[in-house]
């Protein structure tokens, strides 16, 4: 099975520059800098149909093409290594085991948007990973891969590692930009989008770690090769972080369109359910994606269209598996508490709504729930995030998608596991 991101991660010293260079590293960055025009680079990225791996799935090439060419401002590039979405632990593998492949991709993207200073925004808790990145940057500078006039060209390019300090919302790209600017991580009203006014009001592109790391193999093997790895509308391979009640949780790189059943039950992946207790439900794409029941994942493949059709989303590729013993009311409370803690407090529906959600859910977990509380929960999710209608894309009660990120999973949990909530009412 083709791997393009994690094929070397079991090998000793795989994070070093020497190792990376020996395996063809930085050939594509060098080619991009010395031989390719911005238009050629953007065209290949577009043809490859590489979609953002952080969660939103926006086409990377198109994002770059929004950067204005004819203005006198510096352009900035940011690698989003905030890895905040609960269930997601894939980027940590790339950061610690294969940092140069991300830098390789960042150089290609830098040439595409004419950027000379980039940041890696890494979550504050990943201090060791931040140190690995800093060492890798120092190695690359010594070999003229980063710094002044890289690869002997007239192109300067530096990367700065910027540590966050514990805030989920900083994974949202405009909050992330505010955070680098030394402010509270509160999302900005869009438009203007970062491509026009991002960091320091300059054109800025933010891509996920995995998105950057996918670029060198795409440029080496061609856009069509990448398209052919996956399925329609979902090109390439993808990292899936699988946690919860499985035998062997972990990060697995597989082609888009791989059956979820294989990932959970095959020995080369998770090896089945822990203690052989049957599966009850799965969160397919990080905690913000609506939960799916055992029935709903029957035959499900892991790609954008299939998961959307099933009523959820691929998101960051973070799969949380739960067995039959799992208390779904407790799961709902746990997730709502996470979002209440992480709400940045800027928009009233989110700040107040998340606080009310946990107050009411507490009645379900600790006693005192009333029949009307079920309707109340659903009403609050509507007030925070609007009705879930993927076909209509009904966004828009809060500045950023955090509102939807809390509403969707809570609503799905209440609706799909209603008897468990009703049982708590009767128990009072």
């Amino acid at each position, binding site marked *: 099975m083709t791997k393009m991101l994690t094929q070397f991660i079991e090998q000793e010293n795989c994070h070093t520059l020497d190792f990376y260079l020996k395996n063809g590293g930085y050939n594509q960055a060098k080619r991009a800098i010395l031989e390719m025009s911005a238009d050629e680079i953007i065209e290949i990225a577009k043809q490859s149909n590489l979609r953002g791996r952080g969660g939103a799935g926006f086409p990377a090439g198109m994002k770059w093409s929004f950067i204005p060419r004819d203005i006198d401002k*510096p352009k900035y590039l940011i690698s989003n290594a905030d*890895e*905040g*979405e*609960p*269930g*997601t*632990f894939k980027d*940590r593998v790339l950061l610690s085991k294969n940092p140069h492949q991300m830098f390789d991709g960042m150089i290609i993207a830098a040439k595409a948007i004419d950027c000379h*200073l980039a940041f890696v925004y890494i*979550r*504050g*808790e*990943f*201090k*060791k990973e931040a140190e690995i990145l800093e060492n890798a940057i120092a190695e690359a500078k010594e070999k003229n891969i980063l710094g002044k006039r890289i690869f002997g060209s007239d192109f300067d390019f*530096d990367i*700065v590692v*910027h*540590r*966050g*300090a*514990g*805030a*989920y919302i900083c994974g949202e790209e405009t909050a992330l930009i505010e*955070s*680098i*600017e*030394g*402010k*509270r*991580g509160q999302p900005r009203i869009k438009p203007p989008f970062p491509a026009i006014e991002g960091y*320091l009001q300059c054109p800025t592109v933010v891509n996920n770690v995995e998105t950057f790391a996918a670029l060198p193999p795409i440029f080496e093997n061609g856009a069509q090769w990448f398209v052919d790895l996956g399925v329609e509308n979902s090109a390439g391979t993808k990292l899936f*972080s*699988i*946690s*919860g*009640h499985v035998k062997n*949780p*972990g*990060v697995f790189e597989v082609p888009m369109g791989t059956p979820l059943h294989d990932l959970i039950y095959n020995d080369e992946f998770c090896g089945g359910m822990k203690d052989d207790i049957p599966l009850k439900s799965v*969160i397919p794409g990080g*905690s913000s994606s609506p939960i799916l029941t055992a029935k709903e994942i029957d035959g499900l493949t892991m790609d954008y269209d299939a998961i959307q059709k099933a009523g959820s989303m691929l998101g960051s590729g*973070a799969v*949380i598996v*739960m067995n039959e013993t*799992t208390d779904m009311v*407790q*799961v709902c409370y*746990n*997730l709502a508490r*996470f979002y209440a*803690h*992480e709400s*940045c407090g800027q928009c009233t529906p989110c700040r107040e709504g998340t606080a009310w959600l946990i107050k009411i859910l507490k009645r379900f977990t600790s006693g005192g729930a009333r029949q009307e509380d079920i309707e109340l929960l659903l009403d609050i999710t509507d007030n925070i995030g609007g009705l879930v209608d993927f076909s209509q894309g009904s966004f828009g009660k809060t500045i950023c998608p955090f509102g939807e990120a809390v509403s969707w999973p809570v609503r799905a949990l209440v609706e799909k596991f209603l008897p468990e909530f009703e049982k708590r009412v009767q128990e009072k």
Partner: protein
Amino acid sequence: MSFFTEENQKRAENIFSQYPDKRSCALPLLHLAQSQEGYLSNETIEKVAEMCEIEPSEMMDTASFYTMFFRKPMGKYRIQVCQTLSCSLAGADKVVDHFAKKLKIQPGETTKDGKFSLLKVECLGSCGTGPVVQLNDDYIEGKTIEELDRTIDDL
């Protein structure tokens, strides 16, 4: 006299040399100040604000937003237990209860001798190896309560 030690002053200067503007150095400098002082007092925040050439209130606004910046002294060892879903499914709640009982403190508190602080934290980004405990900066992953106990007892 500089607020930072000589070594940290050099680090601060290196930080300033990397960014196109001073305010962007706020987070790196707050991290550096906290590593030197243990927490961020009003005085420390004022000093960092002065270096970044912004108002103390603006720096306070920033510092107070992020959970990793402490506004009061913490124990020598911070036991930070992830409580978000995957870790919770892996038994994180029991880990918190265990340490609360063992150290005779509630989550959010510090032992009287100033040695341990117990903190419940949200997702640490290592959901496949729950329950995850971060001891100061180090991740301790997928350990049983007995194994965690041995680590803590050796401190």
